[in-house]
C-alpha cells in the first residue's frame, strides 16, 4: 500500500482521525480499490464511525495486491502523527503512507517545509473486518443541515451529557436531554430545543419517531463537519435501529452510526392503536403565552401559617385574575386521581415501557399524562412541544 496525501487534504485526513478517536481506541484501516476505509468502534459496540476516502482524495493511491488487507492500530499513535492541526496546515506539504508487511507496520512520513521529513512507524495488528450494518436509503426520516445548526443546538446541552432524545413531527424537530428512568428524575434539569423544518436544507419525515442516543460520540463528527463546512445528513427510523449521521463530498464520505435506545415491543402495538389521532400542532405563540395559563397546584406551600384560618383550597380560589376558574385546579386534582387509577388498569394489560412513560411525562403539562390528558381543562396550558407520539 502506497498513498500520498497532499496539501489541504492532509488536514482533512488528520481531522477525520481525530473525530474517529472520539468513538473508539483503535483505528481500523482497510485499503480497498474504491476507497481507503478508516473505521472505529466503541467498546460497547454502540457507536461506529467510518471515513471513506476515494482514490481522488490522494495524489497517489496504490493498494496492496493480492488478498484484502486489513489492520488495526492504536488510534492514539496515529493521532500523534497529526498532533497539531495548526502546524500541519502551515508546514506539512504532503503525507506519505506506506505499508511494510514484513515488519507489520505502516509508515507515515510527513514531508514538511525546508526539506524536513518526519517519519512515524506505527505497528499494526491484523484485524477482522469491521463493518456496521446499516442502510441509509431505507430510513423513514432523512434530514440535512449545515453543521452550524447542529453545533448551535448541541451547545445548549452540557458537555457531560450522555444521552439526547430527538423527536420529529412533520414540521419540527425537538432535541432534549434524556434522563434515565432510574436516576433521580425529579432533580434533573431538562433542556429542550425545537428546530423548525426550514432551518434544514432537507427535512423529510416518514414516521413521527423519537430516538435516544449518545450525544458525546457525535461531537467528533460535528467538529469535523464544522471545520470542513460540509452539511450533515441524518437518517433514522424506529427507536432501536441506529441513527446514521454522515457528511459527504466528492472525494470522501464519513458515516457515524449510533445505536438508539429501543422501546418495549408492546409499546409499538400501543402506538399503532393511537396512530389514528394526530397530535395537535405545537403552538407557535411563544411570545403570547399568558401567565394565566400557568396555574400551579402547590401542595406543600399552602400549609397554613399562624394567621391563616381556612383550609388550603380558598387560597387557590383567590387567584381571581386567572382565566381558568379556580375550581379547575381542584377538578384537575380529582382527575389526576382518576387518571392514576386508569393508568393502573392499563398497567395490567401491557407492560408500560419505561421509555414511553418518560416521554409522555416530559411532554405532558401539569400532571403526569396518560392518554386521558386531552379531556383535562388544564391543557390550555401552553405546551412548547407536544408529544411526538400520538399521546394526547
Amino acid at each position, binding site marked *: 500500500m502506497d498513498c500520498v496525501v497532499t496539501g489541504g487534504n492532509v488536514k482533512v485526513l488528520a481531522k477525520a482521525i481525530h473525530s474517529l478517536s472520539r468513538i473508539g481506541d483503535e483505528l481500523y484501516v482497510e485499503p480497498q480499490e474504491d476507497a481507503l476505509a478508516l473505521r472505529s468502534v466503541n467498546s460497547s459496540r454502540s457507536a461506529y464511525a467510518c471515513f471513506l476516502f476515494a482514490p481522488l482524495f490522494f495524489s497517489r493511491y496504490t493498494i496492496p495486491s493480492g488478498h484484502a488487507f486489513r489492520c488495526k492500530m492504536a488510534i492514539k499513535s496515529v493521532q500523534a502523527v497529526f498532533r497539531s492541526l495548526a502546524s500541519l496546515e502551515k508546514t506539512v506539504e504532503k503525507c506519505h503512507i506506506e505499508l511494510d508487511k514484513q515488519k507489520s507496520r505502516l509508515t507515515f512520513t510527513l514531508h514538511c517545509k525546508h526539506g524536513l521529513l518526519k517519519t512515524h512507524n506505527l505497528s499494526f495488528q491484523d484485524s477482522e473486518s469491521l463493518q456496521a450494518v446499516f442502510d441509509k436509503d431505507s430510513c423513514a426520516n432523512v434530514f440535512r443541515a449545515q453543521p452550524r445548526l447542529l453545533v448551535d443546538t448541541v451547545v445548549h446541552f452540557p458537555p457531560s451529557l450522555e444521552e439526547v432524545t430527538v423527536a420529529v413531527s412533520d414540521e419540527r424537530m425537538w432535541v432534549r436531554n434524556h434522563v434515565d428512568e432510574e436516576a433521580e428524575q*425529579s432533580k434533573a434539569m431538562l433542556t*429542550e430545543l425545537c428546530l*423548525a423544518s*426550514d432551518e434544514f436544507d432537507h427535512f423529510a419525515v416518514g414516521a413521527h419517531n423519537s430516538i435516544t442516543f449518545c450525544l458525546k460520540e457525535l461531537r467528533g463528527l460535528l467538529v469535523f463537519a464544522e471545520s470542513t463546512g460540509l452539511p450533515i445528513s441524518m437518517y433514522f427510523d424506529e427507536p432501536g435501529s441506529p441513527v446514521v449521521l454522515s457528511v459527504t463530498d466528492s472525494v470522501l464520505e464519513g458515516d457515524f452510526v449510533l445505536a438508539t435506545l429501543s422501546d418495549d415491543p408492546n409499546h409499538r402495538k400501543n402506538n399503532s392503536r393511537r396512530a389514528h389521532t394526530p397530535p395537535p400542532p405545537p403552538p407557535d405563540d*411563544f411570545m403570547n403565552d399568558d401567565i394565566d395559563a*400557568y396555574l*400551579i397546584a402547590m401542595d406543600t406551600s399552602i400549609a397554613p401559617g399562624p394567621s391563616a384560618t381556612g383550609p388550603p383550597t380558598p387560597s387557590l380560589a383567590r387567584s381571581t385574575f386567572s382565566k381558568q376558574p379556580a375550581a379547575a385546579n381542584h377538578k384537575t386534582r380529582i382527575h389526576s386521581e382518576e387518571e392514576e387509577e386508569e393508568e393502573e388498569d392499563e398497567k395490567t394489560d401491557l407492560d408500560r415501557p419505561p421509555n414511553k412513560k418518560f416521554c409522555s411525562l416530559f411532554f405532558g403539562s*401539569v400532571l403526569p399524562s396518560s392518554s386521558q390528558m386531552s379531556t383535562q381543562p388544564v391543557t390550555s396550558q401552553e405546551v412548547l412541544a407536544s408529544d411526538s407520539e400520538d399521546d394526547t
Partner: protein
Amino acid sequence: MKFRGKIIDVACLNHFTRVITTISKLTKMCVLRLTPDNLFFVLSGKVANGGVSMWCELSQANFFDEYQMEGVSSEDNEICLEVTPENLSRALKTVQNAKAVKVKLTKKHCPCLTIAAELPTLSSVSRVVTHDVPVDVIPRRLWHEFKEPNMPDFDVSIYLPPLKTMKNIVDRMKNLSNFLVIEANLNGEMNLKIETDLVSVTTHFKDLGNPPWGDDASQDGGASQSRDPEAMVEARVDIRRLQQFLMGQQVNPSKAMCNIVHQRVVHLILLHEDVSLQYFIPAVA
C-alpha cells in the same frame, strides 16, 4: 402561586446571568425569594455550609421588562424556592443571544423554574429552547429562616481593597494556611495575616477609607465613637470561605466594604448599581 418574568434587553440578560453565576460559585444550593419588587438569593448560615450565610438582593425592575408574580396568598405575597443556582447559570449562559428570555414557575414532573428563550434564526420561525430547572417550594412555616439578616453590631467598618488584589493574595496564602486573620481599624488600615509554625505572612493595606455609617449606624453608638481609630479588630476565618467569595466575583462593585465584629464575624458587602450582595463568614477560634 405564579411567577413569570421576561428579559428582553441583552445587557440586562447578561447582567442577570453574571449575578446568578456569581451566586453559583458561592453555594451549591440556596433559596430564591420572589416578591413583587425584588428577588433575593438567600443562604442561611448552617453548620453544613460552615456557618456562612449570604443575602443577595436584586431589584426586579432593573432586570425584567415584564415581571408578574403572585405569592402563596395575598398576605404572604411571596414565593420561596430552593434552587441550584448552577443549573440556572448554565441555562442562562447558553441563551445570551436570545431575542427574549422568559423565566417562569411551572410544574412539570415537579415544580420547576423554566427558562424559555427565543433564539434568532435565519428561518421564519424562531428557535425556542427551554430549560426546566427543578426547584423545591419552601413551605411558609420555614420562611422565617430566610429573613434579611440584621446588620451586625460591628466594631469596625472599612472599604475593601480591589477585590482582584485581595483574591491574588488570598490565593497564595491559602497554600500556607487554612485560616486567615482579617484585621482592620477605623483609620482605613487593613491587614490580612496568616500564621503557621514555620512562617507568618501579613499583607498591609492603607488608606482604604471607612464608610461613613461607621459612626452613627453602629448600634453601639457611644462605644464606637470612643474607639481608638488605630485599634485593630480582628476575626479569624476559614480561608477557603474567603477565597470562595472572592473567586466568584465577576464584576467590580461600585462599593465593597467589610464590617468586622471582633472575633465573631466578618460581614462583606458588595454594592453594584442594581444588586447588593452580603456575605457573612463566622470567625473561628
